[in-house]
């Protein structure tokens, strides 16, 4: 019998890990989107939310470390699966096409490595822009806080950010279009009428996430700094 660690390194174990990290990242983006939507709430709701988040202390470090491990493991296994495929078929076909039918070899599925790598690069830029971006210090309910809301609004006045984010969020939607169903499948979901439902749910979820995230930069860009939905 393999040790549990060896089992995780096997082909089966790698899939289980892609699935678990994939689900973890899905949960993360759900909370991230809900948090971001506070931009449209009370004038200081977003800054209060980010203040609370940044002052979670130890819990925040645990969450950040968990997220970092999930991202890195997910990206590492994804890239290695893609890399290994050339070893498993040293000579390719002159002609290849999917047979359709019950195949899930969609455009979204075939571009997982591309959309994934874009997300990885985006992540670095994204963290640099907001987590480490320069902000004004404001007084919020008697304590000092970063004015991240103004940074977000200023950032998305720039077309490169507004439209760059939009494109990346569409790619995120594509990644999830296959990824949602695939994660369940990796985590040993049987293939039947329920899995067909999960696939549809996954596509709806992917669209919701993409539209939810890209609405923010596009709205701020087009509505301008005095956006009606964003009050001060």
């Amino acid at each position, binding site marked *: *019998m393999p040790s549990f660690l060896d*089992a995780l390194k096997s082909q089966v174990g790698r899939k289980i890990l892609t699935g678990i990290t994939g689900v973890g990242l899905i949960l993360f983006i759900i909370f991230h989107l809900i948090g971001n939507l506070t931009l449209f709430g009370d004038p200081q709701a977003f800054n209060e939310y980010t203040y609370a988040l940044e002052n979670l202390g130890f819990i925040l470090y645990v969450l950040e470390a968990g997220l970092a491990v999930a991202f890195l493991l997910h990206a590492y296994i994804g890239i290695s699966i893609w890399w*290994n495929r050339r070893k498993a078929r040293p000579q390719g076909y002159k002609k290849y096409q999917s047979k359709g039918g019950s195949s*899930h070899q969609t455009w979204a*599925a075939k571009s997982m490595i591309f959309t994934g790598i874009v997300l990885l690069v985006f992540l670095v830029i994204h963290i640099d822009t907001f987590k480490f971006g320069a902000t004004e210090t404001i007084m919020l309910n008697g304590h000092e806080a970063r004015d991240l809301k103004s940074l977000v609004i200023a950032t998305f006045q720039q077309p490169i950010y507004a439209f760059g984010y939009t494109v990346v969020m569409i790619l995120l939607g594509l990644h999830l279009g296959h990824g949602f169903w695939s994660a369940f499948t990796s985590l040993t979901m049987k293939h039947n009428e329920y899995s067909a439902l999960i696939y549809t749910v996954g596509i709806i979820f992917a669209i919701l996430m993409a539209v939810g995230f890209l609405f923010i930069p596009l709205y701020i860009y087009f509505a301008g700094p005095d956006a009606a939905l964003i009050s001060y």
Partner: protein
Amino acid sequence: MADTFTVHLKIWRQEGPNEPGELVDYTLDKVNEHMSFLEMLDVLNEEIVKEGGVPIEFDYDCREGICGSCNLMINGQAHGPKAMTCSCQLHMRNYSDGDTIVIEPFRAKGFPVIKDLVVDRSAFDRIIEAGGYVSVKTGSAPDANSIPVDKSVADTAFDYATCIGCGACVAACPNSSASLFTGAKLAHLNRLPQGEPERAERTVAMVEQMEEEGFGDCSNYAECEAVCPKGISISAIAEMRRNYMKAALKGSEA
């Protein structure tokens, strides 16, 4: 007598395992819609021999969809365009006059080409040797029906047992994964009372052998299910994953 028609063929010719190989063009004008795909190749070979050439090597045995040896990649699809059909069961009525058909061998590191369209699938035999059996007592035969098997279990086991080991699942997989084949064999044996005692060992041994043979990872493309001539469901892969992780969890406790 149906009219004959012409097809243009691009067929992979390769003299031996370590020769380079290339697609060679042929035009065959004696195709009749009732011919099977393999008969069409037989007729082409007759023409080639008449002209003093070396006939194209391709594998087959039963020609009735049960032996799993007629592995051809036809226009980029394992066993051609029809669902749940082996190359030998594909008929020329699926093609029309003037069509171009590309024929290549199944490709994977685990399936080295021997000659032309013939590949060596003994990697599958070694996966079976690793655990694709049940251990039984020899000696006098047991009484009939002494081991009750639920009808639904027997039926599902039989569905998985219909895998003919053709290798189309590997050939069509962008990663050359052998998960559907291995999963089908495991799903067949693991669910029957006769196979139950060796479930953990069998699952681990076959999964390890599949990886050893150089087959790739599964990315859940489900292309394998679409090309499988027996319609084996990717649920087999889910069961394989579950049993493998269960075995590993138990193993590390002991």
